[in-house]
């Protein structure tokens, strides 16, 4: 499971505007981004339109088709209760995507606010914040999540919160270091010579220049969250059956590994695909941001 470790492009040239058309075009013409979208978009479309696809529902059992290997009728096969694995996988993807998106959004928002405050004002706020993040970073991420789930119970919300709690400190650190490197830029000094307010400096000069690297980190965090959620559910500590989380599917199949390999392996492959494409996405964004990494 990937830790978020982001070589910062921040101190190099950030010459990128997400808002501008030009920026979007450059992003879309990046090979990695294209590759990522080629995987993500179909999966997303299938997930969204699953109810309209000619496949059984994820919870529909079929006693006449129990433990069937992949075929044209059941592309991913069926489990011991005759449930269609493809359908369950797509439903699982929906949960995974939600978890990934929610964690990324939550961590990014909290990290942005707290990291900016710590980096910009320094002093006591900074020291307290750093001590707290130190404490959270002392837990390996899955173990922190396990501990928190044990307190908050299982289910979607606890899982999202538990994973976010191990990501938030990383985002705070990232944002803080970005802010620190920007704070000493000459253009901040230039604005200060005309007595620009702190608010002006933060909103006009600092935060806009941190968004791009944060977004890179967020797409990695989303991939990471999907993997951790699957891990928790696999251990029976995440989202509870019969909800078809991808981790649950793999856990289901574990017992029948020898008789029905497809129950575990195919959903796992889908997780892998999603995680890889999210990484491609972040890599692509980084390449567009930092021309030197292209080589």
């Amino acid at each position: 499971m990937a830790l978020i470790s982001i070589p910062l492009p921040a101190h190099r040239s950030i010459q990128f505007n997400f808002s501008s058309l030009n920026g979007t075009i450059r992003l879309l013409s990046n090979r990695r981004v294209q590759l990522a979208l080629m995987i993500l978009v179909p999966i997303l479309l299938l997930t969204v339109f699953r109810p309209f696809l000619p496949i059984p529902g994820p919870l529909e059992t079929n006693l006449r088709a129990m433990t069937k290997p992949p075929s044209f009728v059941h592309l991913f096969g069926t489990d011991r209760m005759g449930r269609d694995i493809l359908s369950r996988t797509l439903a699982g993807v929906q949960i995974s995507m939600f978890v990934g998106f929610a964690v990324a959004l939550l961590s990014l928002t909290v990290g942005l606010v707290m990291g900016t405050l710590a980096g910009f004002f320094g002093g006591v706020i900074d020291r307290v914040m750093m001590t707290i993040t130190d404490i959270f970073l002392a837990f390996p991420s899955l173990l922190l999540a396990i501990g928190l789930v044990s307190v908050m119970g299982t289910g979607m919300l606890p899982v999202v919160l538990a994973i976010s709690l191990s990501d938030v400190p990383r985002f705070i650190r990232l944002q803080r270091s970005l802010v620190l490197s920007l704070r000493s830029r000459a253009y901040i000094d230039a604005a200060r010579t005309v007595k620009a307010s702190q608010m002006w400096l933060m909103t006009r000069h600092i935060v806009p220049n941190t968004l791009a690297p944060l977004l890179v980190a967020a797409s990695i965090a989303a991939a990471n969250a999907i993997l951790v959620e699957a891990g928790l559910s696999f251990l029976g500590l995440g989202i509870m059956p019969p909800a078809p989380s991808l981790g649950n599917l793999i856990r289901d199949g574990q017992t029948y590994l020898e008789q029905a390999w497809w129950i575990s392996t195919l959903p796992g492959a889908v997780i892998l695909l999603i995680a890889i494409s999210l990484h491609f996405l972040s890599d692509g964004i980084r390449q567009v941001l930092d021309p030197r990494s292209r080589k």
Partner: protein
Amino acid sequence: MNELRPIRSALLDVRNLHTHFLTDKGTVKAVNGVSFQINQGERVAIVGESGSGKSAMAMSLLRLLAYPGKVVSGEINLEGRDLNRLSERQLNEVRGRLVGTIFQDPMSSLDPVMRISNQMIPPIMRHLGLSREKARAEAISWLDRVGIPDAARRIESYPFEMSGGMRQRVMIAMALSCRPRLVIADEPTTALDVTIQAQIVELLKELTAETGAAMIFITHDLGLVARFAHKVGVMYAGKLVEFGPVKDIFARPRHPYTQSLLDTIPPVDQLERRRLAQIPGFPPDMKLPVTGCAFKDRCAGAHRRCFEVAPELEPRGHGHAAACWLPEGLGAGRQMERALIPPMEPAADAGEDRVVVEINNLHKHFTTRSSLPWRKPPTVRAVNGISLRIRKGETLGIVGESGCGKSTVARLLLGLDPATSGDIFIDGMAQMVFQDPSSSFNPKMTLFNIIQEPLVVTGWGTKAERETRVRELLGQVGLDESYMHRYPSQLSGGQRQRIAIARALALKPSVVVADEPTSALDVSVRAQIINLLVDLKQKLRVSFVFISHDLLTVSYISDKIAVMYLGEVVEYGPADEVFNNPAHPYTQALISAVPIPDPEAEEARIQKPLSGELPSPLNLPVGCSFASRCPKATDYCRTHKMVLKPYSKTRETACHYAS
């Protein structure tokens, strides 16, 4: 060895060298047919703007280019052997042994996790076949010769324990340690202060003369060339455009590029100030094929032939050669464009001549956080009691070695840092222009928003008024209005500096503080910015504080000069008086360290480089702060502090013995 070749004394004979960088975006033809010769013991300087291929050429000689650089063709005959045809293994017997190399950045050129001894001794053992003890003694004696104090002990240091100047000395010792026949030095002093530069240059000159080694010295500083070289090669767009004996090149340059380069340098003689020559446009993109002369788009003498056929390096007599269709280059046309700068018009009324900045007994101390709570934290006295006045329309130049407190004064003036004690009065507002054009602007803002930011923040005018003002400012700094909606990344260094100036002028400040505004720019662009500043000063009567380590530029642009040493002003007065007749021993040393782009004058000057380095501002001496390096220091100086005192009617200096 080729028996048929006429026997010459040439040590190195380079013929038709071509070097390419095979990048994803195309082939960069960095060196495009360079030929020249160097005799035994000769010092040859290669000058040119950055990107002209100087380094690529020098590194090609020993095939030291990393991928994607590649020597494509050419002969590199060293003592009759073509290095270009040697195998890597054979070449490794030449590298370090027959040819020593010194690189630009002393901070990164030595392995940071290895002691000096481990970097110096093994090559000596290998190339000279000495035992470890002998090699060690040899290494120590070299360190001693390059002026490392206590060499026997310092050889066990790590590079980080030494200053930049010391590291460059180590590099020189290392490059010379196997007694090479040729030394290649790629901008060996660019990263160093003038005083240290003077020491290093003297050292190189002495040592190569002693050992009889020839030398290729790459630089973009024409002053250094005059001080140092026997011969000069001028590079432009991967080619040598002029080559010849140094005096001849300076006295009678034949190529328009060389001529323009020489004219971009501020003259030493300040009696009549002329505008500096500017070279318009940019060097060509070396990925694209060039037809005709590569300089044609920027040349005042360009004519039809220049667009069709590229001129070759042709002899012009006295061993002088130039690559231009015009035998005399721009010839007499050279001087014509350069208008005399009219003297400042006297102020219309007394109010116009008022003092706009007054600094009284300014101090700034930085207290680093102590590592242990119970220990007293060390204090750096960056600015240590400075008093200055600037009148309206006056330009004050501040000079001094790096670390002497110049930039701290600038930040205090701008109100970016609070002063520890002392007062600053500014009648109006102070604005700034910074050194590094790349971090000066928010990359997410258009130039329009950048320039109007001060107006918006202070609530100046309506939207339409601000737009008019921005247009006006762009006009004043000589940029087209169409630039308004571009982003900083789309500009060149010189254009960015113009934008920085426009932003600084937006609120009609009474003083503009410019901290090394031209240091990151190439010579030809530098001249444009200096001309612009001079114009603005005349037109707007705005005061400037011009901070730079480039004394020639400072003395050219300033009315008054303040010389700083260890946080104090040691001399203050009118620019030409201070420059031509310095009173304080430090100013004298500083000025004699500045190389003058005139070989005859350089020869006549007595070179006595200032010894030692700037002491740490952590524990300042009790007496005169300059005493540790002053040639005239006495015991009295070491115990008695000297403050700035009137020296003549217009000048002040802080020395007990400056009468």
